[in-house]
């Protein structure tokens, strides 16, 4: 009996996964442009502009070397990461209590407030670019990381509140009540009991905050000049200055994909589970 089943199990686990045409085509469509960027980043400028080739004929790391040795390049990454992390922490920190309030209590004007918060997610950054510039200049925050982090809160905080509220609604209220009866204070209950329950929600919210802050350019470029200039802005300026240095541009582009790819890799299990639990 054991032999028979073992044999059958073996054939099953070695069976090739059914190749899905739609999925394969879609992934090829997604990956081709990225491959092309990676391909170019390993070529010299002469090779890019010279004969057309599908892969680097004489691969070079010179483009990456340029970026990683020049402070005006790599500080762009550091700046971006600083304000993205600041923004993510800030957004989650203020969104947690608010989402709890919205999910658990009913209070004067709660529905209007919730919708008003969401409207900020709908505000075009282009509308806010100039006023932000004036506001942060007048309070002396221009060209600081915190300015960009605060500006990105405009769309990230409402989103975080929205996602977290969805997750918190899924946690039965009886858990709160039991904890209070057991003598937990609000703070201890929130940190010790509630947070672990919505951990995947926090993960998803943080993922979205990171994502939208990392990819945004308009506001971060408007609010910075030198000290806090993000990598995305560094790239655009180099394009206009040196114009044709495609290799370095491609290498810089590839390097901006890396943090995102790392973040996705770490939250990959949440993506599937997390999305479904909350509403986003």
């Amino acid at each position, binding site marked *: *009996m054991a032999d028979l*089943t*073992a044999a*059958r*199990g*073996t054939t099953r686990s070695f069976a090739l996964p059914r190749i899905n045409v739609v999925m394969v085509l879609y992934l090829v469509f997604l990956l081709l442009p990225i491959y092309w960027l990676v391909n170019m980043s390993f070529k010299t400028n002469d090779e890019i502009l010279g004969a057309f080739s599908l892969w680097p004929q004489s691969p070079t790391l010179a483009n990456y070397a340029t970026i990683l040795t020049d402070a005006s390049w790599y500080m762009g990454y550091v700046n971006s990461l600083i304000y993205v992390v600041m923004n993510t922490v800030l957004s989650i920190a203020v969104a947690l209590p608010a989402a709890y309030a919205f999910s658990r209590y009913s209070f004067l004007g709660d529905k209007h407030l919730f919708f008003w918060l969401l409207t900020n997610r709908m505000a075009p950054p282009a509308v806010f670019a100039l006023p932000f510039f004036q506001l942060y200049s007048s309070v002396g925050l221009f060209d600081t990381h915190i300015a960009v982090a605060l500006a990105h809160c405009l769309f990230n905080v409402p989103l975080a509140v929205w996602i977290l509220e969805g997750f918190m609604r899924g946690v039965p209220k009886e858990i709160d009540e039991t904890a209070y009866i057991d003598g937990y204070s609000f703070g201890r209950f929130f940190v010790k009991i509630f947070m672990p329950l919505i951990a995947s929600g926090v993960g998803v919210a943080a993922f979205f905050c990171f994502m939208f802050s990392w990819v945004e350019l308009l506001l971060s470029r408007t609010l910075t000049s030198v000290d806090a200039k993000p990598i995305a802005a560094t790239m655009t300026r180099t394009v206009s200055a040196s114009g044709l240095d495609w290799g370095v541009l491609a290498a810089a582009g590839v390097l901006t994909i890396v943090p995102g790819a790392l973040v996705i890799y770490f939250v990959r299990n949440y993506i599937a589970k997390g999305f479904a639990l909350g509403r986003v």
Partner: protein
Amino acid sequence: MAKITLDNLAHSYLARPASEADFALKELNHVWGDGEAYALLGASGCGKSTLLNIISGLLRPSQGRILFNDQDVTDQATAARNIAQVFQFPVVYDTMTVRDNLAFPLRNRGAQPAYIAERVQTIARMIGMEAELGRKARGLTADAKQKISLGRGMVREDVNALLFDEPLTVIDPHMKWELRTQLKALHHEFGHTMIYVTHDQTEALTFADKVVVMHDGRVVQMGTPQELFERPEHTFVGYFIGSPGMNLLDAEVSGTKAVVQGVEIPLGADYARPTGRVQIGVRPEFVRLTAGAEGLPVTVRRIEDVGRHKIIRCELAGVQINAIAAEGALISPDMTRVTFDPAAINVYADDWRVTPKSQAQEAA
């Protein structure tokens, strides 16, 4: 309608099960009669849902065959087996009306519209939802949705078998009784082969002709409710069925005598000398508390009056012994011993019932 044969059947969720413990369902051979109502009874995780899913074809067994009316259906898809199944939680098509929900299995099989209309009406009457036929299923209570699921399961007349996977979990207690009665009436009327999975002994005992008790991936006994009560084949059946369950006491058995804690207890038959862990089992209904000098000395801990009778909870050297006394029975403080009805005592060796010599010879 069909006779269902389980031939050498076993299942493991692992790709390559190493030992018997890896099997969610251990090897079994059974023939289930055409037109009978069976209940699969057991605690959660005992393999009863696995067995049900193998019968319905949602799961392919890792070994063995399953036959409907002597035709091998092991590799047949669910749809081809022509069975109906009702799940633990309501499965309804939210965006359809109640009528369309009930008609769905018939329409998919290309039945005549007039027949469908008539059948839907009949079923709606049976589940008491004629008034809601035109409503969308979305927004109905869980009760109502589960009734639709039951209705959808019963709408086809020609099914080989009707399978129920704990279908009354979400139903209100008073509705439970009503639906169960309806199912039973339906069974009498149409004579479908029915398999009903449950962990509730009352449901199983009232619904089924034969109850299949499962424990740890194994069928430990299959029999009528009366057989399960009088002759539990396994200690699990003894304490799982009955309220409270069977009393089990470690004993030394030789011939027609058992010795428990140094006290000799007469048995109803000759059991020779069973080996392994030997226990005697006796249901509380056959335990009597007396003031005489016979029987086991016990300490009475508590007396519960549950209406029709009293449950007396006693203790003997750390082991609980329950007795059931009639409602009007007097219990006085000098009653400190229990005696057992010898004919009602079963002997177990390593949890399995030992057949008395006389019956063994009859069988042989």
